[in-house]
């Protein structure tokens, strides 16, 4: 019996194996079918990407054909590498490197061998392609920019990364995907859907026609065109004004929340990120860590807002009823708010709200702020109430606009200070700098512009957005939703009066910036900033800030301008803001003196000051960079 076990097992298991194989080979024919499926090649038909127009229908971004050389390593027969390299102007080293990469990716699947040939290169290669079996040409469409401005608004298209391919099954190796700007946020609408053709192949890997008469093939769906809300002329003008400066401009139409211009400086010509020079140029932009051309300052740079924040201090003071229009505070080149503590101011005299704003009196708003905080017994609940008022203007939060990057900014709450001063009785005196936008509050230029839109509307705003129209589709309804501020409509008039006074009162901080025929309301701002240089806290040149809206009644544009290290507010940001307003409302410029000056001003000297010495870190309070949506 024991002798028989091994032979018995052999006989039984062998029979079982035969049954299994019989089942696989003869009974179950699904495998036969699958083996056919294996010998099917998939061909993609890439649709043209949707065009991008501006708010007036001017074409901004179109397409041009581009040709990628693709390779299937397994199909390569003996080729003349030297000729191949010469034809495409690549080195043998590059050839070997790409080949190894392609083989590692897959010997059977196509990978991009050489991307984005232009028409000439394509023609030369096309002529000889039959000599290079295993290579073929994949046509795609690349962007063709009709304007040289707006790179940060558009973003760019690039090959999908391996991570994106793994994450989203739509993309294959070599597929293009929108990055940054509207190319990223409206990727799905712009790209359309690629078509798929299944090609039957025989065992010699020859194509013998479409699989099952094209039963499973799909037709490419064209990408939809979109209209942006920006005005191409205004955008271009803004970028020109910002030449040789760093900073951002954001202009919004208050009645709709549409972004009219979104300028960041320095910027770049979008066309340099197309074609074979793309990766070289992109690397250059990416590695420029000093002027950061890929960094959208309009959306991402968080600055202390400075004096424009006084607008909110005044509004909240009225809403909390700690002041009224007639409330008067004395200013004596500043005011003493606690023993040994003095807040400096550039002016003097008794001020009411309207001229407090027009003359930008620190003492006035320091007093108002302390009254707001002192209204409540516990300072943290007072700060929370103040904080909620501020947040109702869209500050301290992601705004939900349709661009892929953004920052929250910062609005402190009672807890912020409890954490900052543990076990210490902080009160209104401790935090009085908030009154003039120099405390813990941080804002991005788009938040600043949106705040002005809310003031222009006297108490509400629409979520800023850059889309105006999508062909055949509604834009997101959330952009039509009114957001009300916690400050009532009736309190806005005295503040707007003050903003108007900035231009029109004697001694108003912007009275050199008047434009004939336009009632502009605005506010200057000058924000101190510091950096650690050689380990020492050093004061850098102030940031120049200006916010405005116009006309005073039924406003059509609200704007925020920030010029880094641009001295006081009326010096650089102010002229740029009024020029932008005039350009948008009138189409031509009457203040050519300002225009001439702004074209000529260069702050490069300011920026180069510390370039040789080491800047350890900018002392802008750091918050995590994060993504909107």
């Amino acid at each position, binding site marked *: 019996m024991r002798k028989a076990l*091994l032979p018995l097992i052999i006989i039984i298991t*062998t029979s079982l194996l035969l049954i299994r*194989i*019989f089942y696989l080979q003869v009974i179950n024919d699904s*495998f036969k079918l699958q*083996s056919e499926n*294996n010998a099917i090649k998939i061909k993609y038909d890439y649709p043209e990407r949707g065009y991008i127009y501006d708010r007036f229908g001017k074409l901004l971004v179109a397409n041009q054909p581009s040709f990628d050389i693709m390779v299937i390593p397994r199909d390569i027969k003996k080729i003349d590498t030297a000729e191949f390299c010469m034809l495409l102007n690549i080195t043998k080293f590059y050839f070997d490197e790409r080949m190894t990469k392609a083989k590692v990716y897959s010997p059977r699947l196509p990978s991009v061998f050489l991307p984005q040939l232009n028409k000439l290169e394509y023609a030369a290669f096309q002529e000889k392609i039959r000599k290079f079996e295993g290579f073929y040409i994949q046509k795609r469409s690349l962007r063709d920019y009709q304007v040289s401005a707006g790179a940060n608004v558009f973003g760019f298209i690039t090959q999908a990364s391996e991570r994106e391919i793994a994450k989203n099954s739509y993309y294959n190796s070599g597929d293009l995907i929108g990055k940054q700007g509207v190319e990223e946020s409206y990727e799905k609408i712009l790209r359309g859907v690629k078509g798929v053709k299944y090609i039957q192949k025989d065992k010699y890997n020859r194509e013998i026609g479409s699989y099952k008469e094209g039963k499973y093939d799909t037709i490419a769906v064209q990408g939809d065109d979109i209209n942006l809300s920006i005005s191409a002329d205004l955008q271009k003008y803004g970028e020109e004004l910002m030449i040789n400066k760093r900073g951002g401009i954001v202009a919004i139409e208050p009645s709709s929340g549409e972004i009219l211009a979104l300028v960041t400086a320095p910027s770049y010509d979008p066309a340099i990120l197309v074609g074979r020079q793309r990766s070289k140029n992109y690397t250059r932009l990416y590695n420029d860590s000093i002027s950061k051309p890929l960094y959208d300052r309009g959306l991402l740079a968080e600055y202390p807002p400075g004096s424009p924040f006084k607008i909110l201090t005044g509004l909240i003071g009225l809403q909390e009823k700690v002041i009224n229009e007639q409330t008067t505070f004395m200013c004596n080149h500043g005011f003493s708010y606690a023993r040994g503590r003095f807040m400096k101011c550039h002016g003097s005299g008794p001020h009411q709200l309207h001229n407090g704003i027009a003359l930008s009196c620190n003492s006035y708003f320091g007093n108002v702020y302390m009254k707001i905080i002192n209204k409540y017994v516990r300072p943290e609940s007072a700060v929370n109430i103040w904080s909620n008022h501020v947040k109702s203007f869209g500050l301290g939060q992601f705004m939900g606009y349709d661009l892929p990057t953004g920052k929250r900014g910062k609005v402190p709450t009672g807890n912020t200070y409890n954490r900052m001063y543990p076990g210490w009785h902080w009160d209104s005196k401790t935090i009085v700098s908030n009154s003039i936008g120099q405390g813990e509050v941080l804002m991005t230029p788009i938040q600043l512009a949106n705040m002005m839109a809310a003031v222009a509307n006297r108490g509400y705003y629409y979520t800023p957005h850059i889309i105006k129209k999508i062909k055949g589709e509604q834009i997101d309804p959330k952009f039509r939703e009114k957001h009300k501020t916690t400050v009532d409509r009736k309190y806005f008039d005295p503040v707007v009066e003050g903003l108007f006074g900035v231009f029109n009162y004697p001694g108003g901080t912007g009275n050199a910036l008047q434009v004939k025929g336009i009632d502009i309301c605005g506010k200057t701002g000058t924000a101190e900033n510091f950096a650690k240089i050689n380990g020492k806290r050093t004061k850098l040149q102030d940031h120049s800030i200006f916010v405005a809206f116009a006309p005073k009644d039924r406003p059509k544009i609200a704007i925020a301008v920030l010029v880094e290290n641009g001295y006081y507010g009326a010096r650089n940001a102010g002229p740029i803001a009024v020029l932008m307003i005039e350009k948008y409302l009138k189409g031509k410029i009457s203040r050519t003196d300002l225009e001439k000056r702004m074209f000529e001003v260069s702050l490069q000297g300011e920026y180069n000051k510390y370039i040789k010495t080491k800047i350890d870190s900018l002392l802008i309070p750091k918050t995590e960079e994060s993504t909107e949506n």
Partner: protein
Amino acid sequence: MKNQSITNNLDWVSIAIYIILVILGWLNIYSSSLSSTVEDASLFDFSQIYGKQMLFIFFTIPLIFIILAVDGKFYEKYSSVIFGVSLVLLAGLFVAGKTIAGQRCWYAIGSFTLQPSEFAKAATALALAKYLSDVQVNLKDLNRQIQTLLIIFLPVMLILPQPDPGSALIYSVFFLVLYREGLPSWYLWTGFVAIILFVLSLLFEPWAVVLMALIAIVFYYIKSRIGNRNIIASAIVFVLISGYVFSVDYVFDHVFKQHHRDRFNILLGKEVDMKGIGYNTNQSEIAIGSGGWFGKGFLEGTQTKGGFVPEQHTDYIFTTVGEEWGFLGSLIVIGLFAGLFLRIIYLAERQKTKFSRIYGQCVAGILFIHFFVNIAMVAGIFPTIGVPLPFFSYGGSGLWGFTILLFIFLKMDANKVNEW
């Protein structure tokens, strides 16, 4: 005329099957490796896989002559030395081994690599045969059992951490041989039940398996005659089974690596991912399944040509047989293998010495378990474990290891006449 007597006494049936299998193996390697190379290649292009295999096959000829020329008593006399050397070679891998694809089981001399675990099987078989053929050894004796197990587990302990679970698995076949030589049958029963419980506890929740075991034990208890009922023994068995089931569950979740779990899950149909982890198995089933009754013909396999099956020339070589030669070809190849195993067992049983009988059993067992695990894996009824198909799979070490294993036995078999 010693040579004459050897040729007369050699078992030519086994040799014929051996030669046919080696030739068929090479043809399939040729087919599977040709697809990815240039069309008009020489058969002796040694840079190609089939060329190298041709070279390996060529070198078996002097190897066979040497084995047959050595005195038949040599293997028995020096079996412990051979075993010792193979253990040293295995242990040496930890110091001087070359790592290929994550496994440290090769010695590299220039571009030439040698896998000592392929030779350790024959050495272990020799050592086992030697030890068991001692008159003193009775497998009913617990001490003897322990010593026997030690011989088997020494090489396993050296192979497992390489890691090469496939090669280690092979050693389980020695238990069948031990059983033949008198090992108590509960060893096999325990092993059998353990495997069943292992699979069950992967398929079902552990408590469900424990419940099944409880029902089975209670049923057995009631069915037994009153006098044979032993409540304590039943309880102990139940506790042991529960402990085992829960520890399998734990080991599977916490000790196994993800790719091990994947392999079991695919097999048990718990996971379907034909592009990722299930790719190998799915592709090999497709390749075999597309063969039909008579196959697509030599060099005509689309799956083979397309290079869809990974590792096709080594562990998955049988897919080429299935695709190009169909069920008929599979039947012939499997039949040849089974015939060879049964022939070896037949020869073993007629040996005059216990040593050569046990060694013969081991040879049959080793060849069989390779064959079984490999074909079962390729046919999708066994987890993916790297075990070569004897005489078929590409690789010098494997081919030579199996050739040595087989021909030492054939030499012993031819010698038996002289032992009268």
